[in-house]
């Protein structure tokens, strides 16, 4: 009998009502403001300047079937910048899995400077993000899940900005190649493993949590949650990467964690693979016994 893991994924249903209240009921004067904290990945067009991350807050003012997007703490260089877009139509999709508000073509100027126009502004606010409620000791993540604004826009010819969630859960398929104790090679496909990346933007490090870790069918026990602590985060032109070598994971046990040298991660890497940073690929080597690859997303849609 298949036993469902108690660490089952759920969508961020809590926030769905906030979005569904915007369902059109024929009243064009209906108003709502949604505010979310997010991380900006800012990529300067100057290739000599490395992309960087900064935390920020976006407000979405919805009135009727239009919305405006604003922020007051977008770091461009070393300065805080702000903008308010004009009204842009949005569409709302509600399903059992969650709610998504989608919009395109928001316009405006950063710092009201016509030389810094907003271009190619696309985005969505989604509540259909994965989440596991079980607390992990020593991890400072987002306590209460909220919907995620996934934005991408250009600022003139100067910058490209993408937003992502600093505490994201990734689900997908892990394929592991292993050699058993008899020397036979095998592969194992597992859709139960969930990965969580919690990024400390200040320190540019990430804690990666691997839930339901099982890398081979004959592995004695499934590990409820193992943590790879303080891995370096590196920005790239169109995304970011988390890597690490020779990591002894910590396993959640009781109210604390215990090192587990039986599963040494000789190498680990996580790289964003989509333009809006919601999709990642991972590779890892556990003690030269398990070679794994993962591809997955943190938003259902």
């Amino acid at each position, binding site marked *: *009998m*298949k*036993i*469902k*893991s*108690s*660490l*089952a994924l759920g969508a961020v249903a809590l926030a769905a009502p906030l979005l569904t209240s915007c369902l059109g009921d024929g009243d064009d004067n209906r108003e709502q403001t949604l505010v979310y904290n997010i991380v900006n990945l800012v990529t300067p067009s100057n290739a000599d300047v490395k992309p960087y991350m900064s935390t920020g807050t976006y407000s979405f003012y919805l009135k009727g079937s239009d919305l405006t997007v604003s922020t007051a703490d977008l770091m461009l260089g070393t300065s805080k910048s702000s903008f308010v877009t004009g009204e842009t139509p949005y569409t709302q999709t509600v399903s059992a899995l969650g709610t998504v508000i989608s919009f395109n073509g928001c316009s405006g100027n950063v710092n009201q400077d016509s030389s810094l126009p907003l271009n190619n502004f696309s985005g969505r606010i989604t509540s259909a993000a994965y989440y596991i409620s079980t607390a992990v000791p020593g991890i400072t993540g987002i306590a209460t899940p909220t919907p995620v604004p996934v934005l991408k826009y250009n600022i003139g010819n100067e910058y490209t900005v993408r937003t992502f969630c600093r505490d994201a859960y990734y689900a997908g398929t892990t394929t592991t190649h292993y050699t058993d104790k008899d020397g036979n090679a095998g592969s194992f496909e597992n859709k139960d493993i969930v990965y969580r990346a919690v990024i400390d933007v200040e320190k540019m490090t990430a804690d990666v949590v691997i839930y*339901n870790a099982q890398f081979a069918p004959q592995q*004695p*026990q*499934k*590990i*409820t*949650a193992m943590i790879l602590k303080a891995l370096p985060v590196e920005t790239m032109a169109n995304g970011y990467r988390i890597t690490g070598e020779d990591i002894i994971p910590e*396993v*959640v*046990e*009781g*109210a*604390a964690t*215990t*090192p*587990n*040298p*039986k599963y040494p991660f000789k190498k680990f890497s996580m790289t964003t693979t989509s333009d809006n940073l919601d999709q990642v690929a991972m590779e890892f080597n556990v003690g030269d016994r398990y070679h794994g690859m993962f591809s997955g997303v943190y938003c259902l849609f």
Partner: protein
Amino acid sequence: MSVRCILVLTVLSLWCASSRAQTGAKADSTQVTGLEEVSVVAVKQSSSLRGQPVAASIVTAPQLNHLNVVAIKGLSDVVPNFYIPDYGSRITSTIYVRGIGARIDQPSVGLNVDNVPVLNKNAYDFDLSDMVSVEMLRGPQSTLFGRNTMAGLINIQTLSPMSYQGWRLSVQTATNNPFRGSAGWYHRFGRNFGIAAIASFSASSGFYTNDYDSTKLDRERLFNFRLKAQWNPSRRLRISNAANIGMLRQGGYPYASVQTGKISYNDTCFYHRVTVSDGLTLGYTGDRFSLTSITSYQFISDNLTLDQDFLPLDYFTLMQKQHETGVTQDLVFKPVDDGGIYRWLFGAFAFHRHQNMTAPVTFKNQGISSLIEDHRNSSNPDYPIQWDSRSFVLNSNFRIPTWGLAAYHESRLDLDRWHFTAGVRLDYEHTTLKYHSDCSTGYTIMQTGGGGELTPMRHVPVDIDDRGERSRHFLTLLPKITALYDISADDNVYLNISKGYKSGGFNTQMFSDVLQQRLMGIMGVGASYDIDDVVGYKPEQSWNFEVGAHLDFLGGRLLLDGALFYIYCRDQQLTMFPDGTTTGRIMTNAGKTRSWGGEASLTVKPLEGMALRANYGYTNATFIHFFDGHDNFSGNALPYVPRNTLFLQALYTFPNVTSWLSGLTFDINMKGTGRIYWNEANTLHQNMYFVTGISATFTGRRGDFQVWVRNLNSVSYDTFYFVSMGNEFLQRGRPREIGMTLRINI
């Protein structure tokens, strides 16, 4: 058997023979002996089941006496496709009919005793004296009899004080079963009121020995008291009441390890039970309508204490105690039969049962080492753990209130030789599980110090205190249509299409495993169970398609009943032992299954005093679709279901042998069962086996004396097989038994 015992029996036999005359028992009778009371089956269906579109077997008192049947397990295989394996203890009444059955929780076959529907399957296995008849209706009876009659219905009627007055005494002794006795007093006050009081007691020393301490495992003491009253204040009104108290103290669970071939375990196993029931039947017959009310109260209190690993090792033990009260009310309203072509009945049924249960599992030294420490340490050997103590308890307490309501109707149209019936029942049931599980223990994580020694790193407390409530409700429509054609007054053929239903509910046995996995989760390993997934299970529903015939040849000298059936079952409830080292059993809904087969019952009386009987059942029951998450069992045979049941019997009575011996009856019979698969993968099975019995009954004017042998050919067979924690166990069938029974009617 002691010499004293033999002498007593011989004296009693002689006394019996010299007493004044009373009519001796006939060699064979298929007629119900003076059933002067309201039977629920007769009210809802008919007192003449051979004239109904149903496959039914009726076993009357003479046959019950010939076979020494005192419990329904004794009829296993005697009735075609009716199989009750004898294993475990009296808490276990696993009945399979036509491939439909259940090992735990809800029964698939309903049981009425003197009209009282027994709600809890834990109370199904009891000894009952002075049974007049046992009716076994095969196929779904859900439309008229409701929940948990998906595979059929057993209706037991005991002797009425209006039919017999005087004393009825019986005593029996046998190898490994030193004593079984009963005394019944039947008295009639005037024409309209009768009362009966029957007490019975049995003591058994058991068949199976625990190799660990050389004690007999399955000793038993069983006491039963029944008080039955019947009052007919007028020709229109009948009132009967049957109250019953039963007390049981039994060892049990003689499971032998397949590896060693021995039964050996070190912790106590027993089953104690007290049952109380009372059933009040009121029947009023007016000029045009009749109304029957059947009200029952039932109480069961039992204690199942188990060495749950069945090994001479300290793994874990279970002490499951429950108290349950239940009330039922059934009302049947129908017109008086005026010979018209249209008849109908309306009915309503309600019940409530409330179950309180505690089921603490005590983990002991070996269990802590093998199931907890080793599992945790295999995943992190560099930081091993040591448990705080070598014994701790996982506590579980449950309250399960369940109630239900049903309304039903049946219409019958008689058109010359054709008889059409259509019925429907709307059945609603609501059940709630309130649970409280707790555990307080802990362990220390060790680390390797500089000198290579293990030192404590930190302590991890394990404090679990989970409370919750789950509810389920089920609403089901249960239709039935039948067509019967009278070939002649005594012969008919029929078609029956009906829906069967077995309630869903909660399997509390899995809670210890839920807790164990929760505990492992605290240690950072394993997969936690979702309570809704492993504890709750859905109702089982089936469609039964059946054609059959009841044929009478040669003026009743040859009776032939036959049926062919096809059953499609959805969400069949199967008991499985989950993977790994868990202990409980999961009730899971196994996708889809189907059964097809047939039954034939032949009774021939070629000569006066001779009766030949053959009952055969064939069931081909397989999974249409069943994937348990690891393996696909589609196409495999259902486990624990015998493919064939066979009963052959030859009786001959020599009449009037002497002036004091009015009859001498020889009986030779054989029961055949199998093949039975023991697992869903069909890799293990029990081949068909045949068990022979013989008896000789000396019938006097006031009773009879019988010597008998069961399993004459000492066949070795297995009645049950299972795997728990990777260990294989089985229970062997009973060896040869030789016994004597004396029955005296004064």
